[in-house]
């Protein structure tokens, strides 16, 4: 995974910053320095271009795909996001995306999803996390039975807590309400405790590289932790864990698109069918006339017609 750490050396790269505006999740590219590279052209060649992006969220909290590159001429195009300032969904992370004819790649390193959210919990769910904390501190001195009993007590409160939340937000949490928390192992609870104390996010990615070449795709991931717990999900195509209707986490999600292109999403998370998050996505396509993009036909600007107005000029 050494190549994941190579982030310097190409002066043609676009480098941008990721920022949250007004505390919301709109993305702003600030202080952009720009170089014309590869596919940068106002005209488009024929065919479906390759493209890649680092992060995208859709649903209740949308985050536009960023950074996004599209190789409209077929030549190599790169973009980088060098830092993620404070925002409620994503933190840390160095994000690269690149695309060219027949190949695309997206890399993310050291990304935390939702870490800062846990520190901001209020209301009924805050009560739940507060109740879990004693179990966390006593992890080494209590028996597994005691831990499970504590969690059983929480489960009893869960439905009513979620109902209160549902009432205030309009989110359908009914699929969550019937679940229980009984089967956690101490090590797993330890990971959960790390998440609650803000040490790790809901999802942590040490490094993930998602590539496509033609019609094949691959994902390499290290340090993937879901709620502080090492992930047991494999990286074979379309590997996933799911609680139907509640949560699906998929690695190496591969899609053959209708326009002939092929997409690999490195990490895909669907929450309640209402919020989706993609971490690294690469789409392979091809455009013709890659070396010589022809400008599209332009019409001639119209002959002007004078308007009647008072507009003093210098004379």
């Amino acid at each position, binding site marked *: 995974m050494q190549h994941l750490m190579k982030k310097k050396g190409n002066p043609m790269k676009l480098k*941008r910053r990721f920022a949250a505006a*007004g505390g*919301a*999740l*709109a993305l*702003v*590219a*600030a*202080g*952009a*320095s720009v170089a014309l590279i590869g596919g*940068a*052209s*106002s005209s488009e060649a024929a065919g479906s271009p390759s493209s890649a992006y680092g992060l995208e969220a859709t649903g*209740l*909290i949308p985050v536009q795909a960023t950074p996004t590159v599209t190789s409209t001429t077929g030549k190599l195009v790169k973009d980088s996001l060098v830092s993620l300032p404070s925002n*409620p*969904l994503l933190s840390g992370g160095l994000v690269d995306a690149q695309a060219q004819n027949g190949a695309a790649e997206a890399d993310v390193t050291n990304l935390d999803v*939702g870490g800062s*959210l846990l520190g901001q*919990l209020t209301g009924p*769910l805050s009560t739940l*996390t507060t109740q879990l904390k004693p179990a966390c501190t006593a992890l080494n001195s209590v028996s597994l039975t005691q831990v499970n009993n504590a969690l059983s007590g929480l489960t009893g409160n*869960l439905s009513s807590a979620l109902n209160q939340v549902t009432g205030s*937000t309009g*989110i359908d949490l009914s699929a*969550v309400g019937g679940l229980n*928390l009984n*089967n*956690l*192992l101490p090590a*797993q609870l330890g990971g*959960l405790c790390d*998440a609650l104390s803000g040490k790790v996010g809901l999802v942590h990615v040490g490094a993930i590289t998602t590539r496509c070449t033609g019609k094949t795709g691959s994902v390499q991931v290290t340090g993937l932790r*879901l709620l502080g717990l090492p992930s047991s999900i494999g990286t074979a195509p379309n590997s*996933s*864990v799911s*609680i*139907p209707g*509640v*949560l699906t986490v998929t690695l190496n999600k591969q899609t053959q698109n209708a326009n002939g292109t092929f997409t690999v999403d490195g990490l895909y998370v669907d*929450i*309640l069918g*209402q919020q989706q998050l993609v971490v690294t996505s690469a789409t392979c396509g091809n455009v013709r006339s890659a070396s010589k993009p022809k400008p599209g036909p332009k*019409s*001639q*600007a*119209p*002959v*002007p*017609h*004078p*308007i*009647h*107005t008072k*507009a*003093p*000029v*210098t*004379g």
Partner: protein
Amino acid sequence: MNDQLSAPSRSSWPIALVIALLACAGLIVGIKQLHRTADTTPVSAPVPVHLGKLTASTTDTRLHRVPIDHDQRMAPNGTVVHPRHTTALFDSPSGHPFAKVRPKEFGPTWLPVIAHAGGWLRVLLPSRPDGSTGWLQASKVRSATTPYQIQVHLATRTLDLFKDDNEIGTWSVAVGAPSTPTPTGRTFLLGQLVDDNQTFSPVILPLGTHSRTLDSFGGGPGTVAIHGWTDPSVFGQAVSHGCIRVPADALDRLRLIPLGTPVLITRT
């Protein structure tokens, strides 16, 4: 509940469950934050732009934090764009919005393109300070070409008209007096108007530049223009307040030139 789980997830379902719970919690916090800021920030827009708060780039306005054109002697390539709707101007591709352009000022707005990068176009603007430029998204404009270019030479007091790089007309004209010189640099045909209050010319062609010695003139912002003049003895003289006074036959040709056409004003 286990019955609902797919086989691969059976061993890790508690993990997934807790993720689901806390993800829901996180989602709720996020949404609450979103609702608090919804009044000021459009959630779905990739770049939050408040068009209502941006200054319109017109001949009457002065822009701040505007990128200045530092290539004033190079002719643009003839690409001109017309914003379909009011659209934001940015200080760089994907940068900060600092102003906006409207589809109509003196008739339809056409601006010359001086650079492009990806889906972004850099255009000359009609506002002060002179040399104002801005980046706009190519998807927001209609694009066209003008084969024409106008050159004004202050030393020889001539105006040359080119089509497809061939000179098709040259005229002796009046330019700014030494105390009120015609500003040099590259600008463009901004509009075409008939002003019943000004009887010296049947039609006036305002440019995207301003007098640098007159902050205002006759109640206007000091906009420099090409127009006719009733007394032909001025042609070949440096006598105007900054405008370029041209003979009637020149005006007849120039009034047919598309808006946005580049105008290069040189000291030579």
